[in-house]
Each structure stands twice: as structure tokens, then as C-alpha cells.
């Protein structure tokens, strides 16, 4: 990669399609549930494109798009409109897709993210709103299939297209950009971020140019990447393929290539000569949109704290590294889990380490999400306190955590670790109290002089001596008795 990077500069721009989580479709009242409903159950004359049917704009979808655009620091023009994108395909029942061409809902924004702790900024060209298509199912392999089936449940589901500037310079950057974008969409509640089911889809425009050049090279559009890993691999592959073509004196053709995940390569789908002319023109069935400033401000005011701001706060308020803060804020549930754990008394650094370390490792192995785990912030906070008090060793804690993770209720495992070994007997505690007083004369004097804080320190020392097993309430009582 370094050799390549010195010779050519990688230029990547991404087009991300994200479904909008509305109850009803973009232009009709049908439910957006296309994953679990029986085929073609959620359809009507409008989303089936029957003769005579007309679209009606779903205001909530427009609102979600503006919300997204604001979160991506975009400008929201006062005037916007829908256009028709004309092409023939069996999953497109009207023969055109209602989309936005020259007056999208938003433009000129940016997204901040980082690659291994290094800050990056990618320009956002536009965020616009369109309708999703139906879904084709082929009997057997597509090339041999005698029939194709169409399910129009997805037809008309609101879909945002988020187009980036060609500001990304590596596969790493592209992947981080999409991860950060996904986090934002989840944070503001417009998309669940599931790439496998197609709620979030990504196309990449990849080109190379001689290092130092400002002109863009011939771009190749790569489609069909449905995981972060696929995005990374496909772009890496494409960089290497294009480098080879250029190195051997060849010329690149502007084309669309599909990523084949199983074979780990991209395959040419169509070249520019056969590119469609979409014959965009203003959708005559829909009046233009007047986007009032009041509305935009209302939406802006309702935005939650965004990942970038939260990340910043995690660094300043909790003293985390930018890298850890970035990872913790990559999903809203994870960020919330972390904050709750800290709020319950666990130190920030330890909480972050647990969440990003053992916890994430276990979750990833199971393809599980933090919010779905039986381990809750109170469990982690308790476990950390047991380690800090010395009741259990770090090594023990890892084993206990593992047991907690696998249990439907982590409580008992935690109890067993902490509760049973606690020293509450006054006889045993008396020895500890003696030792603490003997070794900390200054704090004892401070407490006598009225410094309540000093007692806390002494209790801490007692906990340390007992490896965390002492009952702190009893320690408190006994120390007070002994000193006074």
C-alpha cells in the first residue's frame, strides 16, 4: 500500500442509500414492513404504480431527511422538488423512480470522523430523498432461471441518498466514514443501520490519479457491498486492480463493477457507452416543496447530541483517548452503556476498557449488539468495583465476566464473586483496623481534626488490605469507634 500511495493518490467518493424509518411508505399509506410481511401484502395502487394512481408526499420522511442533513452539517434550501428518473426494470413498477435531481432537500455538508485517532473530514455533496424499488427473486440461479418473482412490499419505502465528495483517500477512510455515518443515522433515529438486510447500502466511486495531480482519474463505480468488511475489501481490490492496469500502461474505462464477496473481486457490469440516460424531469404529480425556516429550526432543536459532540465530551469529561471515545460513540447504545456504567460509580477508563475489550470481543463473536446483552451497566459497574477493591483479581474478573455474559441473568455469578467472600466479622476486621491506623498516622490526625474526607481514605486502605473483601460499612463503624 505504501508503494502505491506514493505513486498514485486514491480518490474515493461514496453514495450511501439509507432507508428512512417511517411507519408508512414515501408516497402512500402502506406499511414499510417489507421484511416480515407476506410477499406483496403491503401494496396499494400507488406503490404498485397502477394506472391513474398518484403519489402524496410523506412529510415524516422529508423531516427525517432534513434531520439527517442537519446532522451532516448541510444547508437546507427553502425550495426543493421531486423529479422522475426514468428507466425500465421489473422491480420499478412505474417505469420511473421518484427522486430528486437538481434541487435536493439539502447540500454542502461535511462529516467528521477519524482513522485510528487521526481526525478526518469528508464533504457531503447532498442528501436527497427518493423511493425504494421492489425486490426481485429468481428461481434458482439468475442465468438459468425460467421465472422471476417480484415482491413490491419494498416498493415506495423512503430512501435517502447521501452523496459524499471525492474526499476519501483509502479503503480505511471509506470504511470509517460509513461507520461514522451509520452511527449518526442510528443516533438520530432515522435508520437502524443494518447493512445485510439492505437498510443501509453503499456504492463507491473509486479512481486513482498520479500523486500531486489535481485532476480526477477515470472513475469506476463499485456496487453490491453489504458489510463494512465488503466495503473495505472491494475498495482495496479496486485500488490494486486499477494500479495494475495503470502500471502496465493500460487505460481504465468508466464503468460500473459489482463486488463479488465470495470470490473477493469486482466484475464489470456495464460501461459508460451503455450507461442509461435517465431523462430526469420535474415530477408533475407533486407540487414543489417549500421548506420553511421555522420547520428546519424545529428539526434542528430536536436533534440529540451527535456522535462527534459526544466523542468530544468523552475526551474532555472522562479523559478518554480520542480513539476510545470514537469507538465508544460508534453506536448510540454503546455510548449510553458506557455513560451509565460511569454514572453508577465505575471509573471511566476501566469502563471503556471493558466495553471495548472483553465485552466487544464476546459480542462480535456472537454477532450480538450491546443493547441485546444480558449484561447491563449495573453489572459491569459492580464487577469493576470488585476489581478496584481488590476483592477479585483482573484475571478472575475476566472469567467471571465470561460466565456473566453467557448467563441469562449475570446476577448470581456476580454475587458469587463478590458477596460470599466478604469479611464482616468484627474480630477479623479489628486486625485490619489496627493496621490501617498504625500505618496512616497523618490521616488519622486529619480525621480527628474534623476532615471527614480522611476517613474515606482510611476505609479505602482497609479495603485494600482486605483485598476488597472487607465490609465497608463495618469498617466505617469500627474506624470511627477506634479513632475517637
Amino acid at each position, binding site marked *: 500500500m505504501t508503494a502505491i500511495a506514493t505513486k498514485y493518490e486514491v480518490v474515493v467518493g461514496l453514495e450511501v442509500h439509507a432507508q428512512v424509518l417511517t411507519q408508512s411508505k414515501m408516497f402512500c399509506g402502506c406499511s414499510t414492513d417489507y421484511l416480515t410481511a407476506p410477499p406483496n401484502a403491503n401494496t396499494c395502487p400507488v406503490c404498485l404504480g397502477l394506472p391513474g394512481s398518484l403519489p402524496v408526499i410523506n412529510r415524516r420522511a422529508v423531516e427525517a431527511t432534513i434531520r439527517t442533513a442537519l446532522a451532516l452539517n448541510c444547508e437546507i434550501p427553502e425550495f426543493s422538488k421531486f423529479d422522475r428518473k426514468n428507466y425500465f426494470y421489473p422491480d420499478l413498477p412505474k417505469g420511473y423512480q421518484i427522486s430528486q435531481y437538481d434541487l435536493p432537500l439539502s447540500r454542502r455538508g461535511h462529516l467528521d470522523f477519524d482513522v485510528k485517532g487521526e481526525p478526518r473530514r469528508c464533504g457531503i455533496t447532498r442528501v436527497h430523498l427518493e423511493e425504494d424499488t421492489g425486490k426481485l427473486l429468481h428461481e434458482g440461479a439468475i442465468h438459468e432461471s425460467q421465472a422471476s418473482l417480484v415482491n413490491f412490499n419494498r416498493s415506495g419505502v423512503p430512501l435517502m441518498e447521501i452523496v459524499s465528495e471525492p474526499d476519501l483517500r483509502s479503503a480505511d477512510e471509506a470504511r470509517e466514514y460509513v461507520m461514522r455515518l451509520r452511527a449518526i443515522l442510528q443516533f438520530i433515529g432515522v435508520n437502524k443501520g443494518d447493512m445485510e438486510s439492505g437498510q443501509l447500502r453503499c456504492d463507491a466511486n473509486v479512481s486513482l490519479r498520479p500523486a500531486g495531480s489535481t485532476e480526477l482519474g477515470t472513475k469506476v463505480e463499485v456496487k453490491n457491498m453489504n458489510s463494512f468488511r465488503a466495503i473495505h475489501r472491494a475498495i482495496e481490490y479496486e485500488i490494486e486492480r486499477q494500479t495494475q492496469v495503470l502500471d502496465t500502461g493500460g487505460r481504465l474505462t468508466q464503468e460500473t463493477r459489482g463486488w463479488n464477496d465470495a470470490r473477493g473481486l469486482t466484475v464489470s457490469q456495464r460501461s459508460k457507452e451503455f450507461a442509461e440516460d435517465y431523462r430526469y424531469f420535474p415530477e*408533475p404529480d407533486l407540487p414543489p416543496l417549500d421548506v420553511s425556516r421555522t420547520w428546519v429550526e424545529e428539526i434542528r432543536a430536536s436533534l440529540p447530541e451527535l456522535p462527534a459532540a459526544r466523542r468530544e465530551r468523552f475526551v474532555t469529561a472522562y479523559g478518554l483517548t480520542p480513539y476510545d471515545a470514537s469507538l465508544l460513540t460508534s453506536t448510540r447504545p454503546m455510548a449510553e452503556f458506557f455513560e451509565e456504567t460511569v454514572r453508577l460509580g465505575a471509573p471511566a477508563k476501566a469502563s471503556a476498557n471493558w466495553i471495548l475489550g472483553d465485552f466487544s470481543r464476546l459480542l462480535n463473536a456472537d454477532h450480538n449488539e450491546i443493547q441485546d446483552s444480558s449484561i447491563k451497566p449495573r453489572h459491569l459497574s459492580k464487577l469493576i468495583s470488585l476489581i478496584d477493591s481488590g476483592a477479585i483479581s483482573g484475571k478472575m474478573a475476566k472469567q467471571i465476566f465470561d460466565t456473566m455474559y453467557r448467563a441469562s441473568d449475570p446476577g448470581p455469578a456476580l454475587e458469587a464473586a463478590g458477596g460470599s467472600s466478604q469479611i464482616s466479622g468484627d474480630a477479623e476486621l479489628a486486625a485490619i483496623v489496627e493496621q490501617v491506623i498504625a500505618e496512616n498516622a497523618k490521616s488519622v490526625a486529619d480525621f480527628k481534626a474534623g476532615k471527614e474526607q480522611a476517613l474515606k481514605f482510611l476505609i479505602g486502605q482497609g479495603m485494600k488490605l482486605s483485598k476488597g473483601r472487607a465490609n465497608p460499612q463495618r469498617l466505617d463503624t469500627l474506624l470511627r469507634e477506634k479513632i475517637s
Partner: protein
Amino acid sequence: MNLFQRTIRDLHQMLIDREISSVELTESVLDHIVNVGDKTKAYLLVTKGLALRQARAADERLRSKRDIRPLTGIPIALKDVLCVKNVASTAGSKILKGFTPPYSATVVDRLEAEGAVFLGKTNCDEFAMGSSNENSGYWPVHNPWALDRVPGGSSGGSAAAVASGEAIAALGSDTGGSIRQPAALTGIVGFKPTYGRVSRYGLIAFASSLDQIGPMTRDVADSAVLLQAIAGHDPCDSTSSPKPVPDYLASLREGVKGMRLGVPKEYFVAGMEPAVEQSIRDAIRLFEQQGASIEEVSLPHSDVALPAYYIIAPAEASSNLARYDGTRYGFQAGGGRNIIEEYMLTRQQGFGAEVKRRIMLGTYALSSGYYDAYYLQAQKVRTLIIDDFKRAFTKVDALLGATSPTVAFPLGAKTQDPVAMYLNDIITIPANLGNVCGISVPCGLADGLPIGLQIIAPGFREDLALRVAFAFETATEFHNGRSPLMGAAA
């Protein structure tokens, strides 16, 4: 007088007086369809069973005096571009053969709520593209005044049905004159409301920014009654206007005294038949005698309306008609080796020549590299035409002119020359582009063929158009003229 010869209002009175039943009335019309239907070919489908069912329901309503509306029990014909739930709706095209919509157009729902009786689907030019009804994918319609003549188009079936007594009234659709021109050529009243006055939901689209549904009736008061029933905002059509609908009958009789009526000099086009021009000049004089002041006005961009229309309408049509690919409903050619070939075969065989011509025109006009020169330019012309009307309406209340430069021409006379055919609509098209309303009323005969007077009023001033038209009708006898197929008053 036979029942099928009467007007909506006459029949309404007879129905509420229990002088007749809706079933009797409906049977009278259905019988007449049997008698003359082979001559006019006005219907693509007669829904006898549905009509009689609705008539019985209407009679029940009339009997119990429950929710009686002006159209309760009145037999009405629907142009085949209107979707009626569970009734074959083809827009006059073979490509929609076998298509039965699972829903009804908003106007159809509204008429149904009134208790109207649906006689059937009337013939029309395929997807409403044409001025003679000869572009029907099924068969041409014959003018009830002279069977060797066209009835005009595209709502030729609706016009012929009303003019022959095969319907008391009908709905048509007008994109560039498709209600007004056939109304003129068959001696009836045809009204194109302002774009947005009537919901387009369920109207099989030709050109979405121009299409408008309107009434085709025996006289002006009937037109007001029918428009009243279908006008008004529809949440299913975002281009329908939320403006309140006035009571059209209330202002009908206010006359034209003191009104300023404009005569656009550009509307006396080259090629206008002398008899047509004479009738229009006579009509203008009549308004003057009734106390209106007449003023010559100019609509300077009228000459570019037709070319602009033949960019905008085909462009929208090329997109609207893309859905007819044979994969989901209607005609499917079969035999294609892959999906693209199947699309091509279906569209080759399913669409007629004029529809294909317009799809090609429109596709070309929207193509990358030509969009600015054609579509965008045509939209600019449209703005100029809107401004022409706005300027004229600062000086006058309504405009007068011919509806069609000629009377009904013989079948086959213009089929070989699309441009000659397009010129039929030269004085109706500006009203569609200009967002105004226009009504055609009978104003004379030339060699036994009807002539139509067009009255154009500002946008959403349907009340004004109706009032001027009613004043003319009241002072003349032209609307009482009956086509030979309608028969003399017996």
C-alpha cells in the same frame, strides 16, 4: 319526449316527483344504446348489470327520500381513461386489454356517492391522444350528426354518447382540448375546469401537468351540476386545489350585462372555416346586445402554444406510459427471449402508431443534451402563455373564440397527416397550458354540423365561464338542436 333526450335537471325533477323511476330512465338509455350503439360505436363497454343495480339503489334512495342528490339516479357515461373498481378500464388502448382496476377514481367515487348510474366506459383516442377518436385502439367513433364524420377527440365516445342520447351526461378528460373540441363537433356542452379543480386520482394519465377531468352535457346548467359533484380538493391528488368550491348554480343566471368580454385576435386562425368564423362573430354580437362590452385583446404567444404543447405533453406521456411493460397487468406479447425483448414486443404490439410517435417525441425531448433546448424551452413558453392570460384578464372578465377552427371532418381525412390533426387543437391548447378554464357551447350549424363557441375564464373562475355560457344559451336555441341519432322530440 323520450327520457334519454332530457337533461339532468329535468330528469331530477321527474325522479323526485316520482313521475319516473331511475330504473325506467336507465332502461330507456340502455335501450337507446342497443338501438344506435352500432352506429356511433361510442361505448367500449356497457355496464348494464352495474347500471341497473345502481338504478335500483337510487330508486330506493328516492323512495325513502334519503340523501337525494342532484345526480341520484341519473345515467352517466365515463370515458375509458377513468378507473372504475372491478370494471375493465383500458384508456382506449390494447395494451390495457384485460386490466380491471382494484380501485375507483376519486371522481367516480364522488359520483357513486351522489347515487349516479354508470352506463359504461366510452371510447376514446388511445391514452387520450388524438382529436378525432380514430386513434382508439379498438374502433373509431362516428359523429351522431353525420356518421361519416368524426366526433372529435379524444373524448369522442363521451361526446357521441351525450349527443346521440346514449347517456344523459358524461365525463371526459381534456389535456389539449379533448373535452371542448369533441363537444363542439357534436353540438353539446363541454367544460374543461382549471387544472387542480378536479382530482386526477384514478384518471389514467396522459400528460400529468395538463390533464383535467370535466363534464360533457346537453346544456350549461347540467354542466354546472356535474362539475359541482366532482370538483374540490382530494388528499389523494397533491395537485388538486384546496380552494373552496363555489355554488355554480347560484351565479348562473346573473347575465353578462356590464361584463367585459375579450376577443383574442389570434384565435381567428388561418384555415378557420368561414361558417365557423361567422357563427363566432354572431355570438359576439349577441353578447354585445345583452349589455356586455366587447374588446379585442391579444394573446401574443398563442402561435407557440401548439409547439410547446407537443413537447410538454409527449415528454410527460413518455414517462407516464413507461409502466405499460406487460409484466404486471394488461396485454403481454409473450415470446421474448429476455425481459428487454419482452418489453419491446409488448409495447410494439400493444401501443398504436400515434402513442408510439408521442413516446418517441417525448423521449427525445427529455434526452440528455436536448432537455434544455426542448423541454425547458417549452416550459418557458408555458410561462409566457400563463402571463398572456393574466394580462388579458386585467382588462376583461372572460374571453370568447371558436373551440375548433372547423366543423367535424370526414373519418380518415386527416389520419395520414399528424400535423393537420394536431392543428385541430390550436385554440383549445392555450387554456391547458395557461391554467385557465374553458367551456364550449353550441353556437350554430354549418351544413348540419355543429359549431362550438369557446368561453375562457381565469383560473378557478368556473362560475364566470358558466355564467357567460348560460347567458348565451338562454338567448339562443342552439343547445336544443338534436342530432339525427338522438331523434326529434316525440
